[in-house]
Protein backbone atom coordinates (compact mmCIF):
# COMPACT_ATOMS: atom_id res chain seq x y z
CA UNK A 1 0.00 0.00 0.00
CA UNK A 2 0.99 3.62 -0.40
CA UNK A 3 0.95 5.92 2.63
CA UNK A 4 1.80 9.56 3.21
CA UNK A 5 2.90 10.39 6.73
CA UNK A 6 2.66 14.07 7.64
CA UNK A 7 4.98 15.14 10.43
CA UNK A 8 8.19 13.34 11.33
CA UNK A 9 8.23 13.71 15.09
CA UNK A 10 8.52 10.60 17.28
CA UNK A 11 5.08 9.28 16.37
CA UNK A 12 5.41 10.08 12.67
CA UNK A 13 8.86 8.53 12.41
CA UNK A 14 7.64 5.45 14.27
CA UNK A 15 4.69 4.72 12.02
CA UNK A 16 6.62 5.62 8.83
CA UNK A 17 9.47 3.29 9.78
CA UNK A 18 7.08 0.48 10.70
CA UNK A 19 5.10 0.74 7.45
CA UNK A 20 8.34 0.76 5.49
CA UNK A 21 9.60 -2.34 7.30
CA UNK A 22 6.32 -4.05 6.43
CA UNK A 23 7.06 -3.43 2.77
CA UNK A 24 4.68 -0.55 2.10
CA UNK A 25 5.57 2.54 0.10
CA UNK A 26 5.95 5.55 2.37
CA UNK A 27 6.42 9.28 1.84
CA UNK A 28 7.13 11.41 4.90
CA UNK A 29 6.54 15.17 4.93
CA UNK A 30 7.97 17.54 7.52
CA UNK A 31 8.73 21.25 7.58
CA UNK A 32 12.12 20.57 9.11
CA UNK A 33 14.68 18.50 7.24
CA UNK A 34 16.44 17.63 10.52
CA UNK A 35 13.32 15.73 11.66
CA UNK A 36 14.03 12.93 9.18
CA UNK A 37 16.92 11.78 11.37
CA UNK A 38 14.29 10.13 13.55
CA UNK A 39 13.47 7.61 10.81
CA UNK A 40 14.94 4.13 11.21
CA UNK A 41 18.30 3.44 9.59
CA UNK A 42 16.76 1.09 7.08
CA UNK A 43 14.05 3.55 6.02
CA UNK A 44 13.72 3.22 2.26
CA UNK A 45 10.83 5.62 1.72
CA UNK A 46 10.83 9.17 0.40
CA UNK A 47 11.16 12.36 2.45
CA UNK A 48 9.79 15.74 1.42
CA UNK A 49 10.35 19.07 3.14
CA UNK A 50 7.05 20.91 3.09
CA UNK A 51 3.92 22.00 4.91
CA UNK A 52 1.03 19.75 5.91
CA UNK A 53 -1.73 21.62 4.10
CA UNK A 54 0.20 22.89 1.10
CA UNK A 55 -1.63 21.31 -1.84
CA UNK A 56 1.40 21.49 -4.12
CA UNK A 57 3.43 19.65 -1.55
CA UNK A 58 0.75 16.97 -1.12
CA UNK A 59 0.49 16.52 -4.87
CA UNK A 60 4.24 16.12 -5.22
CA UNK A 61 4.02 13.51 -2.46
CA UNK A 62 1.61 11.62 -4.69
CA UNK A 63 -1.54 12.14 -2.65
CA UNK A 64 -3.72 11.48 -5.68
CA UNK A 65 -2.71 7.82 -5.65
CA UNK A 66 -2.21 7.40 -1.89
CA UNK A 67 -4.13 4.70 -0.03
CA UNK A 68 -3.73 6.47 3.29
CA UNK A 69 -2.74 9.78 4.83
CA UNK A 70 -1.53 9.78 8.41
CA UNK A 71 -1.30 13.20 10.06
CA UNK A 72 0.97 13.18 13.09
CA UNK A 73 2.23 16.75 13.46
CA UNK A 74 2.46 18.47 16.82
CA UNK A 75 -0.58 20.60 15.95
CA UNK A 76 -4.02 19.01 16.31
CA UNK A 77 -5.52 21.61 14.02
CA UNK A 78 -3.00 21.08 11.22
CA UNK A 79 -3.69 17.35 11.43
CA UNK A 80 -7.45 17.88 11.28
CA UNK A 81 -7.16 20.17 8.26
CA UNK A 82 -4.78 17.71 6.55
CA UNK A 83 -7.22 14.80 6.86
CA UNK A 84 -10.11 16.90 5.62
CA UNK A 85 -8.04 17.92 2.64
CA UNK A 86 -7.03 14.32 1.98
CA UNK A 87 -10.57 12.99 2.19
CA UNK A 88 -12.51 15.75 0.49
CA UNK A 89 -10.10 17.27 -1.99
CA UNK A 90 -8.06 14.24 -2.95
CA UNK A 91 -10.57 11.44 -2.19
CA UNK A 92 -8.04 9.44 -0.18
CA UNK A 93 -9.86 6.46 1.37
CA UNK A 94 -8.14 6.46 4.74
CA UNK A 95 -7.00 9.64 6.46
CA UNK A 96 -6.21 9.54 10.15
CA UNK A 97 -5.32 12.48 12.40
CA UNK A 98 -3.46 12.33 15.68
CA UNK A 99 -5.44 14.60 18.03
CA UNK A 100 -4.20 15.20 21.55
CA UNK A 101 -7.25 17.10 22.77
CA UNK A 102 -9.84 14.43 23.65
CA UNK A 103 -12.83 16.74 23.23
CA UNK A 104 -11.67 17.87 19.81
CA UNK A 105 -10.99 14.27 18.80
CA UNK A 106 -14.48 13.05 19.66
CA UNK A 107 -16.08 16.09 18.02
CA UNK A 108 -14.32 15.35 14.75
CA UNK A 109 -15.04 11.63 15.03
CA UNK A 110 -18.69 12.60 15.14
CA UNK A 111 -18.15 14.68 12.00
CA UNK A 112 -16.93 11.53 10.30
CA UNK A 113 -13.16 11.86 10.48
CA UNK A 114 -10.80 9.20 11.79
CA UNK A 115 -8.71 10.30 14.74
CA UNK A 116 -6.16 8.80 17.10
CA UNK A 117 -7.02 10.49 20.42
CA UNK A 118 -3.52 10.14 21.85
CA UNK A 119 -4.22 11.59 25.29
CA UNK A 120 -7.20 9.31 25.79
CA UNK A 121 -5.19 6.33 24.61
CA UNK A 122 -2.32 7.07 27.02
CA UNK A 123 -4.80 7.63 29.86
CA UNK A 124 -6.48 4.30 29.10
CA UNK A 125 -3.10 2.56 28.98
CA UNK A 126 -2.08 3.92 32.41
CA UNK A 127 -5.42 2.99 33.86
CA UNK A 128 -5.16 -0.51 32.47
CA UNK A 129 -1.56 -0.89 33.63
CA UNK A 130 -2.55 -0.01 37.19
CA UNK A 131 -5.51 -2.34 37.04
CA UNK A 132 -7.19 -0.76 40.05
CA UNK A 133 -10.80 -1.43 40.93
CA UNK A 134 -12.90 1.74 41.21
CA UNK A 135 -12.75 3.18 44.73
CA UNK A 136 -16.23 4.14 45.89
CA UNK A 137 -16.11 6.57 48.83
CA UNK A 138 -19.66 5.67 49.90
CA UNK A 139 -19.21 1.95 49.41
CA UNK A 140 -20.21 -0.73 51.88
CA UNK A 141 -18.03 -0.14 55.02
CA UNK A 142 -17.84 -3.89 55.69
CA UNK A 143 -15.93 -4.38 52.47
CA UNK A 144 -13.65 -1.58 53.64
CA UNK A 145 -12.11 -0.51 50.34
Amino acid at each position, binding site marked *: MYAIVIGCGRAGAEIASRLCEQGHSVVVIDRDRAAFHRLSDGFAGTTIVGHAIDEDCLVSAGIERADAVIATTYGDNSNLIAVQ*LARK*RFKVKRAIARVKDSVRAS*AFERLGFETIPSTTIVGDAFEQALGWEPHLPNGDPENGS
Partner: protein
Amino acid sequence: MFVIIAGGGKVGGQLARDLMAERHEVVVMESNPGKARALQDEIGDAVVPHDASEGRWLIDAGIGRADLLIAVTGDDEDNIVICQLGQALSEGRARTITRINNPKNSDTFRTLGIEAIVNATDLVMTMIERDVSVAPVVHLMRLRSAGLELVEMTVAEGSAADGSTPEELRLPEQGGRISVILRNGEAVLPSPTTRLHAGDSVVLVAQTEFEEALGRQFAAPTIV
Protein backbone atom coordinates in the same frame (compact mmCIF):
# COMPACT_ATOMS: atom_id res chain seq x y z
CA MET B 1 -26.27 38.30 21.62
CA PHE B 2 -23.63 36.19 23.34
CA VAL B 3 -20.47 36.24 21.26
CA ILE B 4 -17.26 34.25 21.73
CA ILE B 5 -14.23 35.72 20.00
CA ALA B 6 -11.28 33.36 19.46
CA GLY B 7 -8.10 35.40 19.28
CA GLY B 8 -7.40 38.51 21.32
CA GLY B 9 -5.05 40.31 18.96
CA LYS B 10 -5.76 43.61 17.27
CA VAL B 11 -8.82 42.41 15.41
CA GLY B 12 -10.26 40.37 18.26
CA GLY B 13 -9.74 43.20 20.74
CA GLN B 14 -11.36 45.77 18.49
CA LEU B 15 -14.29 43.46 17.78
CA ALA B 16 -14.75 42.88 21.50
CA ARG B 17 -14.82 46.61 22.22
CA ASP B 18 -17.26 47.25 19.36
CA LEU B 19 -19.59 44.45 20.38
CA MET B 20 -19.46 45.38 24.07
CA ALA B 21 -20.26 48.98 23.16
CA GLU B 22 -23.31 47.55 21.38
CA ARG B 23 -24.19 45.87 24.69
CA HIS B 24 -23.53 42.35 23.51
CA GLU B 25 -22.19 39.78 25.95
CA VAL B 26 -18.64 38.99 24.90
CA VAL B 27 -15.95 36.46 25.82
CA VAL B 28 -12.52 36.70 24.20
CA MET B 29 -10.27 33.62 24.20
CA GLU B 30 -6.54 34.25 23.86
CA SER B 31 -3.90 31.63 24.57
CA ASN B 32 -0.90 33.96 24.62
CA PRO B 33 -0.57 34.95 28.32
CA GLY B 34 0.92 38.38 27.56
CA LYS B 35 -1.77 39.30 25.06
CA ALA B 36 -4.48 37.92 27.35
CA ARG B 37 -3.25 40.00 30.31
CA ALA B 38 -3.05 43.18 28.25
CA LEU B 39 -6.62 42.67 27.10
CA GLN B 40 -7.72 41.74 30.63
CA ASP B 41 -6.41 45.09 31.88
CA GLU B 42 -8.72 46.75 29.42
CA ILE B 43 -11.90 44.69 29.30
CA GLY B 44 -11.56 42.61 32.48
CA ASP B 45 -13.22 39.26 33.10
CA ALA B 46 -14.41 38.88 29.55
CA VAL B 47 -11.00 37.42 28.69
CA VAL B 48 -10.39 33.67 28.94
CA PRO B 49 -6.62 33.08 28.77
CA HIS B 50 -6.84 29.80 26.87
CA ASP B 51 -6.75 28.30 23.39
CA ALA B 52 -10.23 28.27 21.83
CA SER B 53 -9.51 25.08 19.89
CA GLU B 54 -9.06 23.24 23.20
CA GLY B 55 -12.49 21.66 23.57
CA ARG B 56 -12.90 21.94 27.34
CA TRP B 57 -12.07 25.66 27.34
CA LEU B 58 -14.48 26.36 24.53
CA ILE B 59 -17.16 24.53 26.51
CA ASP B 60 -16.17 26.45 29.65
CA ALA B 61 -16.39 29.73 27.77
CA GLY B 62 -20.02 28.89 27.04
CA ILE B 63 -20.12 27.60 23.47
CA GLY B 64 -23.26 25.69 24.42
CA ARG B 65 -25.24 28.92 24.68
CA ALA B 66 -23.27 31.11 22.25
CA ASP B 67 -25.11 32.81 19.42
CA LEU B 68 -21.97 33.57 17.52
CA LEU B 69 -18.36 32.40 17.43
CA ILE B 70 -15.85 34.63 15.64
CA ALA B 71 -12.41 33.11 14.97
CA VAL B 72 -9.77 35.75 14.34
CA THR B 73 -6.52 34.15 15.44
CA GLY B 74 -3.52 34.68 13.19
CA ASP B 75 -3.58 31.07 12.04
CA ASP B 76 -5.95 29.90 9.32
CA GLU B 77 -5.90 26.25 10.34
CA ASP B 78 -6.74 27.19 13.92
CA ASN B 79 -9.55 29.48 12.79
CA ILE B 80 -11.16 26.81 10.63
CA VAL B 81 -10.94 24.09 13.26
CA ILE B 82 -12.24 26.46 15.95
CA CYS B 83 -15.31 27.16 13.80
CA GLN B 84 -15.87 23.48 13.08
CA LEU B 85 -15.39 22.57 16.72
CA GLY B 86 -17.73 25.37 17.80
CA GLN B 87 -20.42 24.09 15.48
CA ALA B 88 -19.96 20.54 16.68
CA LEU B 89 -19.97 21.43 20.39
CA SER B 90 -22.98 23.71 20.07
CA GLU B 91 -24.74 21.14 17.92
CA GLY B 92 -24.97 23.63 15.11
CA ARG B 93 -26.60 26.29 17.23
CA ALA B 94 -23.76 28.81 17.23
CA ARG B 95 -23.13 30.68 14.03
CA THR B 96 -19.47 30.83 13.16
CA ILE B 97 -17.44 33.30 11.22
CA THR B 98 -13.77 33.58 10.43
CA ARG B 99 -11.30 35.30 8.23
CA ILE B 100 -8.68 33.73 6.01
CA ASN B 101 -5.30 35.37 6.48
CA ASN B 102 -3.43 33.70 3.66
CA PRO B 103 -5.16 33.97 0.26
CA LYS B 104 -3.43 30.76 -0.80
CA ASN B 105 -5.37 28.97 1.92
CA SER B 106 -8.70 30.42 0.90
CA ASP B 107 -8.65 28.30 -2.27
CA THR B 108 -7.78 25.24 -0.22
CA PHE B 109 -10.58 25.86 2.24
CA ARG B 110 -13.04 26.57 -0.53
CA THR B 111 -12.38 23.15 -2.02
CA LEU B 112 -13.13 21.67 1.39
CA GLY B 113 -16.53 23.31 1.35
CA ILE B 114 -15.46 25.25 4.40
CA GLU B 115 -17.38 28.27 3.21
CA ALA B 116 -20.58 26.42 3.82
CA ILE B 117 -19.45 25.66 7.34
CA VAL B 118 -18.11 29.10 8.07
CA ASN B 119 -21.17 31.04 7.19
CA ALA B 120 -19.62 34.46 6.91
CA THR B 121 -21.75 35.92 4.21
CA ASP B 122 -25.10 36.21 5.86
CA LEU B 123 -23.62 37.45 9.10
CA VAL B 124 -21.58 40.16 7.46
CA MET B 125 -24.54 41.23 5.39
CA THR B 126 -26.67 41.44 8.52
CA MET B 127 -24.04 43.52 10.23
CA ILE B 128 -23.81 45.90 7.31
CA GLU B 129 -27.56 46.26 7.23
CA ARG B 130 -27.45 47.17 10.89
CA ASP B 131 -24.48 49.49 10.34
CA VAL B 132 -22.45 47.75 12.97
CA SER B 133 -18.84 48.67 12.54
CA VAL B 134 -16.93 45.48 11.95
CA ALA B 135 -14.42 47.15 9.67
CA PRO B 136 -11.24 45.50 10.95
CA VAL B 137 -12.56 42.11 9.95
CA VAL B 138 -14.69 42.61 6.95
CA HIS B 139 -12.11 44.17 4.73
CA LEU B 140 -10.46 40.79 4.62
CA MET B 141 -13.48 38.92 3.46
CA ARG B 142 -14.87 37.78 0.24
CA LEU B 143 -18.58 37.48 -0.13
CA ARG B 144 -17.93 35.22 -3.05
CA SER B 145 -21.37 33.76 -3.44
CA ALA B 146 -22.77 37.25 -3.91
CA GLY B 147 -19.92 38.33 -6.19
CA LEU B 148 -19.00 41.01 -3.68
CA GLU B 149 -15.91 41.88 -1.73
CA LEU B 150 -15.43 43.98 1.32
CA VAL B 151 -12.30 46.00 0.88
CA GLU B 152 -10.59 48.65 2.86
CA MET B 153 -8.97 51.41 0.86
CA THR B 154 -6.97 54.36 2.03
CA VAL B 155 -7.47 57.66 0.28
CA ALA B 156 -4.12 58.72 -1.18
CA GLU B 157 -3.17 62.35 -1.45
CA GLY B 158 -3.97 63.72 -4.88
CA SER B 159 -6.18 60.74 -5.76
CA ALA B 160 -9.56 61.19 -7.42
CA ALA B 161 -11.19 60.44 -4.08
CA ASP B 162 -9.18 63.06 -2.15
CA GLY B 163 -11.57 65.98 -1.57
CA SER B 164 -14.49 64.30 -3.34
CA THR B 165 -17.81 63.01 -2.09
CA PRO B 166 -19.09 59.49 -2.83
CA GLU B 167 -21.69 61.15 -5.06
CA GLU B 168 -19.05 62.99 -7.08
CA LEU B 169 -17.06 59.81 -7.42
CA ARG B 170 -20.22 58.11 -8.77
CA LEU B 171 -19.29 55.01 -6.83
CA PRO B 172 -22.67 53.26 -6.94
CA GLU B 173 -22.70 53.35 -10.74
CA GLN B 174 -19.25 51.84 -10.63
CA GLY B 175 -20.21 48.91 -8.49
CA GLY B 176 -19.06 50.19 -5.12
CA ARG B 177 -20.63 51.51 -2.00
CA ILE B 178 -18.90 53.00 1.03
CA SER B 179 -20.23 51.44 4.18
CA VAL B 180 -18.03 53.26 6.65
CA ILE B 181 -15.24 55.85 6.73
CA LEU B 182 -12.49 55.42 9.29
CA ARG B 183 -11.12 58.86 10.12
CA ASN B 184 -8.69 59.60 12.98
CA GLY B 185 -9.66 56.36 14.66
CA GLU B 186 -13.38 57.18 14.49
CA ALA B 187 -15.94 55.41 12.34
CA VAL B 188 -18.03 57.83 10.29
CA LEU B 189 -21.17 56.77 8.48
CA PRO B 190 -21.02 58.50 5.12
CA SER B 191 -23.79 60.35 3.36
CA PRO B 192 -23.60 60.93 -0.40
CA THR B 193 -22.18 64.36 0.35
CA THR B 194 -19.54 63.45 2.94
CA ARG B 195 -16.21 64.67 1.66
CA LEU B 196 -13.29 62.24 1.72
CA HIS B 197 -9.81 63.36 2.63
CA ALA B 198 -6.35 61.94 2.13
CA GLY B 199 -5.59 59.54 4.97
CA ASP B 200 -9.19 58.39 5.40
CA SER B 201 -9.74 54.68 5.21
CA VAL B 202 -12.97 53.61 3.61
CA VAL B 203 -14.62 50.24 3.81
CA LEU B 204 -16.28 49.51 0.52
CA VAL B 205 -18.66 46.84 -0.57
CA ALA B 206 -17.52 46.31 -4.12
CA GLN B 207 -18.57 44.09 -6.97
CA THR B 208 -15.60 41.83 -7.48
CA GLU B 209 -15.19 42.72 -11.14
CA PHE B 210 -14.99 46.45 -10.40
CA GLU B 211 -12.63 46.28 -7.47
CA GLU B 212 -9.56 47.20 -9.44
CA ALA B 213 -11.18 50.16 -11.16
CA LEU B 214 -12.48 51.40 -7.83
CA GLY B 215 -9.01 51.05 -6.35
CA ARG B 216 -7.63 53.44 -8.94
CA GLN B 217 -9.87 56.23 -7.65
CA PHE B 218 -8.22 55.98 -4.27
CA ALA B 219 -4.65 55.59 -5.45
CA ALA B 220 -2.18 58.42 -5.89
CA PRO B 221 -1.90 59.64 -9.48
CA THR B 222 0.94 57.92 -11.27
CA ILE B 223 3.63 60.15 -12.71
CA VAL B 224 4.02 59.53 -16.42
